[in-house]
Each structure stands twice: as C-alpha cells, then as structure tokens.
C-alpha cells in the first residue's frame, strides 16, 4: 500500500499495488486506442471508393490510371472488365515502372474476365511480347474458368494461336483435364480432338484421369488422329515415345 497525494484537492488516499500497476497501463491503453482509432478514421475518411478508382481509370495521367488498376485489382477485382484495357496499357508502358504490378493486377482480374482476355488475345496478333506474356500469365491464374474460353477460341477465331493458348492449358495442369475430356468425348471436330490430345500429352501423368477418354476417342478415329491419341496416351502414362 502506498499513499497518493491529490495535488489540487490536497487530499490523501491509500492505493493498493495492483491498482497502482493498473493505472498507468489503463492510461496508455486509452491513449493508444484513441490514436489508433483516429488513424483508422483518418485513413478510412481519405480512402478512395471503388467508384472513385473507376473514375480515375479515365485520368489523363497514365500513372494515375495505373494506380487505379492496382487498387481495383485489390479491392474490387469483379470490376475487371472496366479495368482490363488500362491494365494492359500499363503492362506495355515501361516508362511508368509499374509493368509488373500491372501484370499481377491483371492476374487478379483474370478469374472475372477470362473471356474478355481470351478475346483480346485472339483479336490482335501485333501486340508486344510483354503484352502477350501478361495476358497468358493472367489466363493461367484464372484457373479452370479460363479453360472453356480458350477452347471456345481455339474452335473459332483463335485457331491460329492455339499453340500459345495451349501453353495456358498445359500450365493449368489437372484443372484443364475435365474440359479437354469433354472435347474428346463430345466434339465432332477431329482437329480439336487432336489438339486436346496434344495438350493432355503435354500435361503428362497429371492427366491420368483422361486416359479412358483418350482410349475411347481411338474408336473409329482417322489414322492421323489415332497417332496423336496414342502419342498423348504414352505421355500420360509416363512413357513418351
């Protein structure tokens, strides 16, 4: 027990050791809590909303646009379609120094915009290597969501770029297997079946689930397709020719 002197009133009281220990701690806790709260309030009050970031996508300054893309990828990746073009523009603008963060942002957008990304990739063969790498990398990040879009493109206007898109399917690994099996089982186009077999073969033993479909597709297939299916089966079994 100790004596505590109240300077203003001049009174004196007894303070227990426990109470004494608790007093300054309470005061510290209170002030730090207030400071934290104030900082959070300040940060919250200043933070930009999704709508403000979307508006910033049209800013004349490419750096401001790039920041908006990075922010939207973090806090609202579902708004991918509005930000895709600016993200790809940033990937191509080395002078901003934000190409890598923009490519990462693109990967975050990809699950919400796989179709658009595939369309953009197929549409223009004159893009830079960085642009293409960023789109293909984002499609890999998109996971299974991108596989139907890629197969759709390979069926139609993207056939000329099937090899590049195939790399995405290969990197997606086992996640590509089910849609590719679907192609083997249902698609009437032998060229697409051959393509699916090639991708499955490149995936290798991780595509074991596709073996029945590969074997089934042999029945009644043309000799060229049969050769492709056999080569794929060998690779999937782990015994490449």
């Amino acid at each position, binding site marked *: 027990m100790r004596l505590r002197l109240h300077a203003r009133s001049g009174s004196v009281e007894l303070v227990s050791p426990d109470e004494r220990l608790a007093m300054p701690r309470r005061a510290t806790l209170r002030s730090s809590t207030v400071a934290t709260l104030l900082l959070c309030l300040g940060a919250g009050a200043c933070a930009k909303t999704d709508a403000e970031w979307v508006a910033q996508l049209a800013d004349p300054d490419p750096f401001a646009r790039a920041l908006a893309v990075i*922010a939207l990828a973090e806090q609202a990746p579902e708004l991918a379609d509005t930000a895709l073009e600016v993200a790809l523009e940033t990937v191509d603008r080395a002078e901003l120094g934000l190409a890598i963060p923009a490519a990462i942002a693109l990967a975050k957008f990809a699950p919400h915009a796989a179709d658009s990304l595939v369309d953009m990739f197929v549409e223009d*063969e004159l893009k830079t290597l960085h642009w293409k790498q960023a789109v293909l990398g984002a499609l890999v990040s998109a996971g299974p969501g991108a596989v139907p879009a890629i197969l759709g493109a390979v069926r139609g206007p993207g056939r000329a770029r099937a090899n590049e898109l195939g790399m995405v399917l290969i990197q997606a690994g086992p996640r590509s297997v089910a849609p590719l099996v679907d192609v083997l089982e249902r698609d009437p186009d032998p060229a697409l079946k051959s393509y699916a077999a090639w991708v499955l073969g490149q995936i290798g033993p991780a595509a074991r689930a596709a073996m029945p479909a590969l074997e089934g597709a042999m029945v009644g297939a043309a000799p060229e397709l049969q050769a492709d299916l056999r080569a794929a089966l060998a690779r999937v079994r782990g015994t490449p020719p």
Partner: protein
Amino acid sequence: MTATRGEPWSRLAILLLLVLGTLASARGLAVTLENRVPLGVLFGARTWLAVLGLAVSVTAGLAAAIMEVRGMRRAAVRAHPFAPLRRSFVVLVGAWLVCLVYVQPFQRLWFDILLGLACGVWAVTVVAEQFIDPLPPRIGRALDLGLFALCLSVVLTEVSLRGLAAVRPSPFFARIADAPRQFLERFRSKPGELFFGLPCNAQGYYDTEFLRRAEGDRLVVAIGDSFNIGSVPHAWHFTTVCERLLDVPVFNMGAAGVAPPEYEVMLVEDALPLDPDIVVVGVFVGNDLSYAVVGSGLPDTALRSWMQRDEVLLFVLPRRLARVAEERDRRAAGPAGVVPGRGDAPRGASVEELRTSLPWLDDPSLEAGSLSDETFLRLEADRALATCRGVPSAFADVCESLTAMRAASGSAELCVMLIPDEFQVEDELWAAVVARVGTTLDRDLPQRRLSSWLAQEGFATLDLLPVLRAVPPMDDGRRHLYHLRDTHFNARGNRVVGEALAEFLRSRLGE
C-alpha cells in the same frame, strides 16, 4: 546589432514557410492515405512508415509555427536570423537531388510525399534548435553557410546551363523527356542478338560496330524504326546497298516499334557522339504520323522539367561528355577510315549461303507472308484511315520532334527520308484497303502534307513514293518491293531504296 537586423522579417518569412511546409506535409499525408491501397501493393508495410513520417511532419510543422509565433510575441532574438531560411533551402535542394537520384521516373504522387517529408525534416530542425545545439557555434555556422553555398551553386549551375542551352542550342544541351528513352530501351535489340546471322552491335543496332568519324573522313547515320532493322540480311539492307555505292560508311540505327520522339533520343545519345556529316531520319508515313505520344499530355510539365532526371542538365551533360570521350577513345584505338568489311558477308553466314538458304531474296514470288491475310489487311486499312483522311494524330508532334532534332544536330546535316506505306505503292492492295474501309481516302495525303511542311522549314527530303512507284510491276502486276504481308521492304525494295538514298546523298556529300 548585426544579429537582430532583419529579425522581424526573417521570423515572418520563417513562419510563412512553416505554414506552407505544414500544408505540404498535410497534402502528402492526405494523398498517401488516399492511395494507400495501391501503395500498399507496391511498398507493403513501408507505406505506413511514410504515413507516420508525414504525420510527424505535420505535427512538427505545427509545433514549429506555434513556437515561431511565441518567439515573435516575446521579441526573442536569434543569433543568426536567416539560418533557418538557409536551412530550408538546403533541405529542399537536398530533397530535389534525392528525387533525381532515387525517385525516378518522376510522378506527382512521389513528389508530394517527398516534399511533405522534406518540409517535416526542416520543421524538426526549427523545433530542435530551440532545445539542442549539437555543434560548436563556429562549426555550425561554417556548416550552415557552406551547405547553403553548395546548394546555391548547384541550382545556379543548372539555371545557367539552361540559359546557355536557350542561347546556344547544342546536342549536349538537348533535354529529352525520359519516356522516349525508356520506350527505346525496351524495343532496342539486345547487343549480340542475331538477325539473319549478324549479331547486333554493342548499341543494339543491326550493323557492325560503330566508330566515331575520323578527321577527314565522311560518315552518314541512318535513323529509323523497324525499316532500319528490316526483313532482309544485312548485306541486302538499304543502308548497306547505299554504303557500297557511296563507299562511305552509312551506320544503321533502328529499333522496331519506335517513332520520332525515340529517333530524337537515338540522334542525341547514339548518332551525334559519332560526329556524322549527315543524319538521315526515316519517317514511315504508315505509323510515324499517328503513333501514341508517350509522355504527351502528362500533367505538371514545369515540375517534371526539374524533377525528371533526364531533363536536368546537371545529370545529362556529364553523361554526354563521357559518351563523346568514349567514342574518341574507341576511334583512337580502332582502324582509320572506312571500316573494312562493312557490307560484306555477315559473320554467321556468307552472302552465298544466305542466298541459297533464303531463295526469296532473289525471287519475291517465293516469299512467305509474315502476317495472316486478315491481320495484314486490317493493319493496312487502319494505317490508311489514320493517315489518308484528315490530319494524322501525331502530325504536330512529328514536326516538333524533327525541329528539335535539327536544333540538336549542330554541324551535322539532318535530312528526312519519307517512306511510303505499301498501300501507296501496290495498286491491288490499295483497292482492297479502300473496299474495306468504305470511305473516301486520299492516297498521297501524308506525303503532300509532310513534304510541304519540310520544304517550308528547309529540310533536305528524299520522298521515296515517286521512286518506288517508278519501279515497273512484275508479271503478276505487283511491284514486289515489300515483303509479302510484312509491311517492310524485301530485298528488291531495299535495293531500290539504297540506290535512291545513295543518289540523294552523293550530291550532299559533295561527290
């Protein structure tokens, strides 16, 4: 007596600066918090360190301002009334130099944060001087005046260099925004990268190594985009053809995908240190008049001209002087006169070997298309729409770049070679383009427009359009001067252009 002279005014000025500095710190804090999501992605937890630093800066600024007001009320006297003002100058110049060295490329956000922190540093020194005096007075005074003099001389040197640049334009004083340089670096070939067996030289250009012009020799440098890289082996390239005909070295500087702002960088950084007699800038009307201007329309132009490293002559000038010295040293160490072997077989394969392995070099009908039919036609139609209808989007920028290049060229003569697009030369392609765009186009408009401006400005110009159109078509009705669905000259086109360029240069070189 001396110490108190000017005291009220210095106090007022310090107070004013403290208020402005506090506002700058507050702005820095606000923009950091506002952008904390992207900054968090870019810098992680360090973003909060910046927030903390800026919060301290605001607090220090307010505290210093309050203390200054109290000092005014008390009529307190400083030993050196202007010392805080000198210190503010030193801190700001220091922040400027830090920005130039470490915080590049310039962006307004980085500037706001750095300025806020710099103001905070100054405010902390103003507060601290009331309580601590870490240095003996003499040393403190010497440091104060010495640093101030140093910073003042740095700023005055830059201002003087800019003044000199305005009065006497020179390649050494050219101030080029960083964006085209970065763009060029990205698209420039890698040294040693092989094209048709020839490794690119040390500067990343499709040519053998460059040497500075020797006294009494002559030298031409050709600058351009992918046309200067081309679709043919080096021995077939138009610069090599021209070189053989003139017996004068024609250095080939090209990078795919670049445009006139990047040509300016190539001129100042790579061509002029070689001391050429003539520089030929190839302007391809297909895309050089309608490129997206990198760095155009950026905000804070005035600020950028001081905060962007490559616009600050203090940084640029030593580098350029070193480059010229380097070229002089290489010249002294290397062979004199025309570089022997230039234009002969590339290192990897002989001309005959190339001719055998690439039969399309002699027979254009054997060429394989580089692009698909659809992409090629779309590209040509887009280019026709961009250049043959109204004023191309970058026309003014091209004129500006060419003017700046001529101003920077010094004693070297700057000539322009206008390269037509394939649709202007091949009638069949033109018909397909017109059918595709479905609107009225003026096929020769870009040449007419640019030639007229170039003539008005007194540029020596080689317009290749009439030269290429004068080539008689082959049996299939096509002139076959461009590689099939590629948009660049083939071997036949390069030969025609090389001959025309040699003819054009012969008179200018006084041969």
